[in-house]
C-alpha cells in the first residue's frame, strides 16, 4: 500500500512514487545536450581507424579552411598543456602495477580503433564533422596485439614499449593450505571459461558542455557524469588549473552503470578549449563513438578448480583470471581492478578453508576496459557457480543441496571470509530456499523430465552471490588506489521548516530524489514533500565521491542521517529551552516537536525554524545561529548484500536459441528504503545480466578492427527478451549502518550469467555439452550441440 506523499510517518520502507518522475514525463528534464549556451561551438574528434599505428603526419589545412571552423588541434598541439591520463597506485601496495600514459589526443602512436588523434572546433556539429572528415592523418600501421594469448607470447608486439611486456598487473594470493586441500579432496572439478567483451551502453552517450566565464574567473563543465567532484579534481590536475575556479555540474544523466564514473580525454579537451577560446564548447559523442571509444568491460579467460569432500563440503578453491584490459587504464580507477575483483570474489557465500588466485591484467590494442555494473563479480560468480554445479553432478548431489551445505549460516554472522571480509549479516541459505519455493523446484524438475521425454530441453540454473557494497576508503587504500569511499551531505532547514539536502552522490536513474528524501524525512520528522535533494553541482554540494558500487544508499544515506542527527540535536536543544521539556524527552515527528513519551505535539517544526532563523534575538546566547549541518560519512569496512537468482530456460536444440521461461530473484540488501525502487533496480540489473549472458559482444577481428559499431551489430535485450522477474525479499539489516541499509544498485546484474549458464548446461545435460563461454548465442550453443552429436 502506498503511503501518502503529503503525510508524515515512517518513510524508510514506504512504497512512494518517484519524486523525479513528473519533470521527466512532462519533458522538462535536462540532459547535457539539452543545454544550448549562446555562441557555443561544437567539437568533433578525428579517430583512429587502426588498432595500432604510428602517426606519420597530420594535414589539417583543408579542414582549417572550411567555413565555420574555428580551430583544429592535434596531439602535438596540446602536449604539455593537458597532461595524459595516468593511473598511479601506491607502489608499496601494488608492486606489480605498471602505469601508462593515456594522451588525451594521441601523441606519436594510436593504440585502439577509435582513439582520438585530433579535434575540430567549429560553429556547429555539422561543420565540425565535415571538417573532421577532411583531416588527413597518415598512419604507419604496426602489428596489433589483438588478444591476450598473443599479448603474452614472448615475441609479442608491445602496446606500451616502456613496460617490456604487455602485463599491466599480476595479483597473487594464497590463503590456507591449498595444495593440501586438493590432495585430500574426494572430488576435484575444474573449468576453463571465457566471457565476452561487452559494455555498459547507457542510452545517453557521453558528452559535456564547457564554458569559461571571465566575470567570475570560473571554468564550468556540465558533464553527463556519475562523479562530479572526482571530475573536478582530475580536470584541475590534468589542466593544472586551480580547482577552486572549476565548477562541475552533472545535470540529468541518461544512465551510466559505471561507464560515466571516469574522466575521459574528451572532457579534458573540452574544458581546455573552453578556457583557451573563451567560448562555450559542446561535445556530444555519437553511438559509434560510444561503442568503439568509451569503455568496454569484462573480457576474461578463467581457469579454476574446486576441491570438495564426498559430501560436497568445500576444501579449497583456486583460480586464474586473465583480463583483456585493452589499450590504456580507465582513469582514475585503473583497469587492472576488474580481474582482481573477479578472482577475489570466487568463494562468494561459501565457507572456504583454502583459496588461492592469480589475476593478470593484459594490455591489447582494443578499447580500454572500465567498471561496469558488478565489475568483476559477474565473472567470479559465473565461475564459482559453474564449479558448484560440476561438483554436484560428479558427486550425484542436487545443485541446491551442495550450495546449502556450504553456505554461511545465519547464526555464524558476523562471519569472516577467507579473504578477510567480515560478513556482518545475511540470508544465504534462506534466500536460496525461498527462491526454490517461488520456483516450485520439485515440480519444475518433474516438468523438466516430462519435457525431455517430448524432446524439449528445459534447464534450471542457480546463481548465488555475496556482494561487498559501498567500499570504504580503507578498502581502496589496501589495494593501493588513491580514492575515497566516504560521502558528504549538508542538511539545511529554511524559515518555513522545509529541508534542502545537498549530497555528493549523483543519481543517473537510481531515484535518489525520492529514496534519499525518504531518509531525511524520517530523520527530521517532516513530510516527504518538504524535502528537496540536490546533487551534481560542485559549487553547491560538499565534496563527495558520486554514485557507483552500490554505495549511494549506504554512504549518501549515511551522510544524510549523520548530518540530520546534528541538526536534530540542535533543534531539540533549542526546543527544550522554549518548552522547558528536557531535550531527550523530545522528538521530531509529523512536522512537530513532540513529547516523546506520549507524542503530545508541543510546537510545529516550522515555528521553531522561524524563531531560530528570523527571530534570532530570542536564541539562547550559548547557541550558534543557523539551521544547517554537514557530515562526512565513512562506511564500515564492509557491508554485504546477497541474493539467489534462478533461471528456468528452454533451449531449442535445432537452433541453439535460449528462451528464458522464468527468472527468480530473492535479494537481501538489508533495510529497504523503497520497495518499488529496489524491485526496479533488480529488474533492470537482471536485464543487463541477460544481455551479458545471451547477447552482448563487442567484437574485434584479428587485425584489431572493431566490428560492432552500431546497435544493429551490438545487441542488447529488448522488451521481447526480458521476462517479468519474480522477486522475493529478505531483509537482514546491517548492524553497522544508519537504518541498516546495505545497497542494491549492482546486484541484479551480478548473477544472471551464472544462473543462465547453469540453466543452459542443465537443459543440455543429455548432450553432455560443456558450457564454457558467454554470451550464449544461438550459434555458439548450436555449435556445442552439433559437436557432441558428431562425436557420438
Amino acid at each position, binding site marked *: 500500500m502506498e503511503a501518502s506523499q503529503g503525510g508524515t510517518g515512517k518513510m524508510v520502507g514506504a512504497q512512494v*512514487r*518517484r519524486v*523525479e*518522475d*513528473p519533470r*521527466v*514525463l*512532462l*519533458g*522538462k*528534464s*535536462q*540532459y547535457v*545536450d*539539452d543545454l544550448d549556451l549562446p555562441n557555443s561551438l561544437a567539437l568533433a574528434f578525428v579517430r583512429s581507424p587502426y588498432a595500432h599505428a604510428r602517426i606519420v603526419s597530420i594535414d589539417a589545412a*583543408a579542414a582549417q*579552411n*572550411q*567555413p565555420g571552423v574555428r580551430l583544429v588541434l592535434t596531439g602535438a598541439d596540446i602536449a604539455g598543456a593537458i597532461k595524459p591520463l595516468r593511473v598511479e597506485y601506491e607502489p608499496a601496495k601494488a608492486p606489480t602495477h605498471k602505469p601508462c600514459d593515456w594522451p588525451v589526443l594521441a601523441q606519436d602512436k594510436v593504440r585502439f580503433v577509435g582513439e582520438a588523434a585530433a579535434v575540430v572546433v567549429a560553429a556547429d556539429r*555539422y561543420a565540425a564533422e*565535415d571538417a573532421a572528415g*577532411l583531416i588527413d592523418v597518415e598512419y604507419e600501421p604496426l602489428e596489433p596485439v589483438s588478444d591476450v594469448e598473443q599479448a603474452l607470447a614472448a615475441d609479442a608486439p608491445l602496446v606500451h614499449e616502456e613496460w617490456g611486456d604487455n602485463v599491466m598487473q599480476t595479483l597473487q594470493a594464497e590463503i590456507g593450505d591449498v595444495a593440501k586441500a586438493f590432495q585430500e579432496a574426494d572430488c576435484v572439478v575444474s573449468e576453463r571459461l571465457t566471457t565476452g567483451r561487452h559494455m*555498459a*551502453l*547507457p*542510452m*545517453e*552517450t557521453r558528452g559535456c558542455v564547457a564554458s569559461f566565464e571571465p566575470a567570475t574567473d570560473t571554468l564550468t563543465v556540465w558533464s553527463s557524469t556519475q562523479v562530479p567532484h572526482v571530475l573536478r579534481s582530475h580536470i584541475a590536475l590534468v589542466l593544472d588549473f586551480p580547482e577552486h575556479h572549476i565548477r562541475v555540474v552533472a545535470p*540529468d*544523466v*541518461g*544512465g551510466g552503470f559505471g561507464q560515466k564514473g571516469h574522466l575521459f580525454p574528451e572532457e579534458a579537451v573540452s574544458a581546455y578549449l573552453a578556457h583557451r577560446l573563451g567560448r562555450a564548447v559542446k561535445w556530444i559523442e*555519437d*553511438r559509434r563513438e560510444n561503442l568503439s571509444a568509451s569503455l568496454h568491460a569484462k573480457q576474461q579467460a578463467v581457469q579454476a578448480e574446486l576441491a570438495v569432500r564426498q559430501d560436497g563440503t568445500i576444501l579449497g578453491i583456486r583460480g586464474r583470471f586473465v583480463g583483456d584490459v585493452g589499450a590504456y587504464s580507465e582513469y582514475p580507477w585503473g583497469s587492472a581492478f576488474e580481474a582482481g575483483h573477479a578472482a577475489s570474489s570466487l568463494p562468494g557465500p561459501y565457507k572456504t578453508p583454502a583459496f588461492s588466485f592469480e589475476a593478470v591484467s593484459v594490455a591489447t590494442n582494443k578499447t580500454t576496459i572500465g567498471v561496469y555494473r558488478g565489475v568483476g563479480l559477474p565473472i567470479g560468480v559465473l565461475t564459482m557457480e559453474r564449479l558448484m554445479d560440476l561438483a554436484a553432478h560428479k558427486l550425484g548431489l542436487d545443485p541446491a543441496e551442495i550450495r546449502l551445505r556450504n553456505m554461511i549460516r545465519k547464526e555464524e554472522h558476523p562471519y569472516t571470509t577467507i579473504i578477510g571480509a567480515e560478513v556482518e549479516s545475511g540470508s544465504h541459505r534462506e534466500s536460496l530456499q525461498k527462491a526454490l519455493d517461488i520456483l516450485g523446484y520439485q515440480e519444475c524438475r518433474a516438468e523438466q523430465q516430462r519435457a525431455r521425454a517430448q524432446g524439449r530441453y528445459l534447464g534450471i540454473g542457480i546463481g548465488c552471490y555475496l556482494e561487498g557494497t559501498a567500499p570504504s576508503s580503507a578498502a581502496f587504500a589496501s589495494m593501493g588506489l588513491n580514492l575515497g569511499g566516504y560521502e558528504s551531505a549538508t542538511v539545511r532547514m529554511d524559515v518555513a521548516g522545509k529541508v534542502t539536502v545537498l549530497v555528493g552522490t549523483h543519481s*543517473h*536513474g537510481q*531515484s535518489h530524489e525520492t529514496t534519499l528524501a525518504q531518509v531525511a524525512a524520517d530523520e527530521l520528522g517532516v513530510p516527504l514533500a518538504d524535502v528537496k535533494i540536490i546533487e551534481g553541482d560542485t559549487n553547491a554540494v560538499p565534496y563527495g565521491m558520486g554514485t557507483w558500487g552500490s554505495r549511494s544508499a549506504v554512504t549518501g544515506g549515511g551522510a544524510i542521517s549523520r548530518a540530520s542527527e546534528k541538526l536534530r540535536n540542535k533543534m531539540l536543544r533549542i526546543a527544550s529551552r522554549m518548552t522547558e521539556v528536557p531535550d531527550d524527552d523530545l522528538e521530531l515527528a509529523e512536522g512537530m516537536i513532540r513529547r516523546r513519551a506520549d507524542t503530545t505535539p508541543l510546537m510545529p517544526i516550522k515555528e521553531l525554524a522561524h524563531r531560530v532563523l528570523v527571530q534570532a534575538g530570542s536564541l539562547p546566547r550559548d547557541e550558534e545561529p543557523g539551521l544547517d549541518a554537514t557530515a562526512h560519512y565513512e562506511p564500515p569496512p564492509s557491508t554485504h548484500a546477497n541474493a539467489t537468482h534462478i533461471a528456468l530456460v528452454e533451449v531449442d536444440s535445432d537452433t541453439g536459441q535460449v528462451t528464458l521461461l522464468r527468472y527468480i530473484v530473492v535479494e537481501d540488501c538489508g533495510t529497504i528504503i523503497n520497495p*518499488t*525502487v529496489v*524491485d*526496479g533496480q533488480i*529488474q*533492470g*540489473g*537482471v*536485464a*543487463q545480466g541477460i544481455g551479458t549472458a545471451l547477447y552482448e559482444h563487442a567484437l574485434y577481428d584479428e587485425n584489431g578492427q572493431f566490428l560492432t559499431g*552500431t*546497435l*544493429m551489430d551490438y545487441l*542488447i*535485450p*529488448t*522488451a*521481447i527478451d*526480458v*521476462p*517479468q*522477474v519474480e522477486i522475493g525479499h529478505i531483509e537482514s539489516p546491517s548492524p553497522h549502518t544508519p537504518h541498516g541499509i546495505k545497497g542494491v544498485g549492482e546486484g*541484479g546484474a551480478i548473477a544472471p550469467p551464472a544462473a543462465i549458464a547453469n540453466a543452459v548446461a542443465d537443459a543440455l545435460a543429455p548432450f553432455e555439452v560443456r558450457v564454457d563461454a558467454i554470451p550464449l548465442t544461438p550459434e555458439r550453443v548450436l555449435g556445442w550441440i552439433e559437436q557432441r552429436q558428431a562425436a557420438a
Partner: protein
Amino acid sequence: MAATQFTEYQTIRVRVNGHEYEREVPVRRLLADFIRHDLGLTATHLGCEHGVCGACTIIMDDESVRSCLLFAVQADGAELQTLEGLADGDKMHPLQQSFWDNHALQCGFCTSGFLMSAVDLLNKNPRPSEEEIRHGLSGNLCRCTGYANIVKAVQAVAEQSQS
C-alpha cells in the same frame, strides 16, 4: 581534398504540438536536430542517430517515426507531436500518469520515445495483449528498467480504456 560546402537551405512549414512554425533550414538538417535545437523542444532524445534505439520517436501525421532518420525538409507540411504535446497543460496524459504510477522509468532518457511509441501502439490497437505490447515496444531500447514496468504501464492504460 577539396573544401566542401553544404549551404543549400529550404523554407519549411510544420505544425508541432498545435503550433505553426515556418523556418529556413539547411536541407541536410535532421528532423531531430531541428526539433531539439531550432525549436527548443528537448524532450525528444537522440540515443543512436541510426534508427535503432527509438529514443527520438515522435508522431508525424499519426504515425510514429524516428526523427533521427528524417531530414527536417521531409516534414514540410506535416503535423508533428512530441512529448511536450502529450499532456494537457500540467495534467498528464494517461500514459504519462501510468508510467509514473508503475515506476516505468529510471534515468528517463528513453522515456520520451517509449511514450510516443506507446501512443502510436494504443492508437492502432487499443486493446493489445502483453505480447502485442512487448512487440509494439521492441523497437525502443531501455537500459535501466528491464521493460517489465513499461509493459505494465501500457497494459494498465489499455485496461482502463476498456472499462
